[in-house]
């Protein structure tokens, strides 16, 4: 039944989108509209949660950066600037941060934001009883991990309100990107009195959803829309032009595109059927935003025949990445040259981790069939003779299926036979995590602006290391990078580690993620960052 309905929905989207392509984009609002201060936007379906401690999704995070504000916030250029904290001091060893909360920081009900609110929020997110998926985001705090695992008390955690306005934070190890983390939702303050009064349901109504950011939630019609209006108690409200945001909740991409084309929606962060992108891009309707994410395949290094490094290398050489981004993903993505995507800050502030000195390009855009065949022959499988059929596991969706078929075809050119096995999402993920796969689709997106978010997952035994790969040198390089706040040392270690990862190939990167947003041409100043967040704080309507 489920499969049938899903198939129908997919068919409907494909069918609908076949027509949508011919849509015209005549501007209806050609009049004097600069006074306009409302925006309707769609960034996803009904969110799982809008509780800062519990959210893990990109869309949830978009709602949260509008309603809440951390110690720091994201400026119009993407840089971390002062938020609820007006200033901070960092100890020389990089382990102690002392934040001063600004005097005019207020909650949407007018009460002042205090250091205690932050202490409560962080300990709540770490509390095992809260059962937050993203508690790991707070493992940087001293005893954060221990408290979350029941091995330490709440009082031991390295966050303490010295007085109403002073927050002292002790870290486990020096963390150069800690200030960037404080504008991440898990670090947002919440109100103890509210949560104790309303319990789990505090996020459900406008009365109980008290927040300290630029906007407050005024209505949540489940599965229909979330309405936010300007928080009149917000300390930095004077430059905010957009006074009301209607977040339209939908999971039907074809309908979302229709709504944008008909002018009902002003903004859409890529909630569009994939096959529409080439046309939309050609028509100049999209705003491309680089995302910190990589599409890849993960190989189980404990399973034959991919336990053989030569076979893994041959498989990688046989992939025509250019063909995949142009004919399969079709959204203007860049082909992968390493595991860490472009846009990740490195040592060189003029460049990024991917392009600075020390980085290498490990893959070419097109395939090297001869080289791949040669490696396969060296591995004892000339022209693929004697090589068993390899299973490629995939969670079914239109793009993933096409990717699977493209890979199957490309590998067939060197004599490798791949069998695609399609699974439902909730079946696929445990299958891969329990390492039952041989080759599986894999993707990873960054949680913070540092290459480490792409690197420490390949440590021996890490829960996201679905390859089963283990390399002592790699582990010690990552440990080295984690133990120092000397950026030159850290980045050198991370570049070395990436080289090992890309030579050993437990994971074969294919392309980097890219989001194509649709923005009404009159709506200016919408900032979208590589973590997938969208900010209307700096947006305005043009005449």
């Amino acid at each position, binding site marked *: 039944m489920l499969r049938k309905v899903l198939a129908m929905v997919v068919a409907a989207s494909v069918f*609908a989108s076949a*027509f949508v392509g011919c849509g015209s984009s005549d501007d209806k609002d050609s009049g004097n509209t600069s006074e306009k201060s409302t925006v309707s936007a769609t960034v996803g379906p009904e969110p799982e*949660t809008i509780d800062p401690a*519990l959210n893990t999704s990109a869309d949830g995070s978009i709602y949260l950066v509008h309603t809440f504000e951390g110690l720091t916030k994201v400026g119009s250029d993407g840089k971390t600037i002062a938020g609820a904290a007006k200033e901070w001091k960092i100890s020389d060893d990089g382990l102690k941060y002392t934040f001063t909360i600004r005097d005019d920081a207020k909650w949407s009900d007018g009460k002042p934001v205090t250091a205690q609110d932050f202490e409560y929020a962080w300990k709540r997110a770490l509390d095992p009883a*809260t059962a937050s998926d993203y508690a790991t985001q707070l493992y940087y705090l001293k005893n954060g991990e221990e408290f979350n695992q029941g091995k330490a008390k709440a009082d031991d955690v390295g966050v303490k309100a010295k007085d109403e306005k002073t927050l002292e934070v002790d870290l486990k190890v020096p963390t150069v990107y800690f200030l960037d983390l404080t504008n991440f939702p898990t670090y947002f303050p919440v109100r103890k009195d509210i949560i104790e009064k309303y319990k789990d349901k505090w996020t459900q109504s406008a009365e109980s959803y008290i927040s300290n950011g630029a906007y407050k939630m005024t209505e949540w019609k489940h*599965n229909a829309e979330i309405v936010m209006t300007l928080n009149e108690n917000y300390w930095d409200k004077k430059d905010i032009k957009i006074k009301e945001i209607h977040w339209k909740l*939908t999971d039907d991409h074809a309908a979302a595109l229709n709504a944008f084309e008909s*002018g009902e929606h002003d903004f859409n962060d890529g909630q569009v059927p994939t096959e529409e992108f080439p046309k939309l891009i050609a028509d100049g309707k999209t705003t491309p935003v680089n995302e910190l994410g990589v599409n890849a395949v993960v190989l189980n290094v404990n399973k034959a025949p991919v336990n053989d490094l030569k076979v893994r290398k041959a498989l990688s050489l046989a992939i025509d990445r250019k063909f995949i981004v142009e004919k399969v993903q079709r959204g203007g993505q860049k082909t992968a040259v390493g595991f860490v995507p472009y846009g990740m800050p490195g040592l060189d502030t003029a460049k990024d981790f991917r392009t600075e000195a020390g980085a290498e390009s490990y893959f070419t855009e097109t395939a090297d069939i001869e080289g791949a065949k040669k490696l396969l022959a060296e591995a004892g499988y000339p022209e693929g003779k004697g090589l068993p059929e390899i299973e490629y596991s995939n969670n079914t969706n239109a793009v993933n299926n096409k990717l699977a078929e493209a890979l199957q075809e490309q590998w067939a050119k060197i004599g490798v036979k791949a069998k695609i096995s399609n699974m439902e*999402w909730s079946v696929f*993920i445990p299958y891969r995590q329990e390492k039952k796969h041989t080759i599986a689709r894999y993707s990873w997106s960054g949680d913070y602006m540092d290459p480490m978010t792409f690197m420490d997952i390949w440590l021996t035994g890490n829960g996201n290391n679905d390859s089963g790969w283990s390399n002592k040198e790699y582990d010690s390089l990552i440990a080295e990078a984690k133990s120092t706040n000397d950026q030159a040392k850290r980045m050198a270690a991370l570049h070395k580690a990436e080289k090992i990862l890309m030579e050993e190939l437990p994971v074969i990167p294919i392309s980097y993620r890219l989001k194509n947003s649709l923005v009404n041409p009159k709506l200016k100043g919408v900032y979208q960052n590589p973590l997938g967040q969208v900010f209307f704080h700096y947006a305005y309507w043009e005449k």
Partner: protein
Amino acid sequence: MGYYILKRFFYSLLSLFIIITASFFMMHAMPGSVYTAEKKLPPAIEENIKAKYGLDKPLHEQYLLTLTNLAKLDFGMSMHNEGRGVNDIIEEHFPVSASLGTLSIVLVLLGGVPLGIVSAMNKGKWQDNVSMVIVTLGVTVPGFVVAALAQYFISVKLKLLPVMGFDTPKHWILPGVALSFFYMAFIARLIRSGMVEVLEQDYIRTARAKGLSKAVVVYKHALKNAVLPVIAFLGPLAAGILTGTFVIERVFSIPGLGRYFISSISNRDYTVIMGVTVFYAAFLLLMVFIVDIIYVIIDPRIKLKN
């Protein structure tokens, strides 16, 4: 009659119990869990989540707990949508699905019955051919295609009606039509074949011979018999319309209950799966129960044993 109703009621309860038990064990047999995510959670965090939702208890204990709570009509909290009670979900979203469903059933009857009558009365003439073309289209073109076409031409091109939502009567038109088109056509065919058959019967000839007006013959004598299969079909129709809303609600982004039926399964949101399944099952059993009783009342030929 009283005994018949009691017996039917008992069978309904038994069916419900079987549905609950089967759903419970089937959903726990599915691979994956409520915390399945691309990014694997550390084991300690998984343990925290299991403890929070009582998933760390043995399965039979969870089953007994589920039965007890269901008997108290307490469906619990959603495991996927934090902070939402399953009872709240049903209370908030079922009225939307129900109004869409009711609207569609009204459209089905208002459109389907006259179409069938016109067809049967003019058998073989152009009116019959035209309505049979409509009917064939209705039966063969699925609702979501009608929905997509309507959305594109009426909303995007002509900008006459909104693309999505369910706020005002303007929003109701497209989804209502998309949902009812198939059943309208189906009912028209049922009525047509029933009428054609009935109109050739002797008692109709007698009625005509008595000099009764055409209207009386059609509405009083013929339609009463021809409408019986339609009533028998009302139970499955209610079921079909309700399950049909799953797709239409998604295409038009209507905040109905139907989508929870699907999303809760892919999210492995156990409490919502149980709550929504039990609620739908009870609702459908009730519909079938009511239709059975109406049928007995309308058609005296059905003899009740005992």
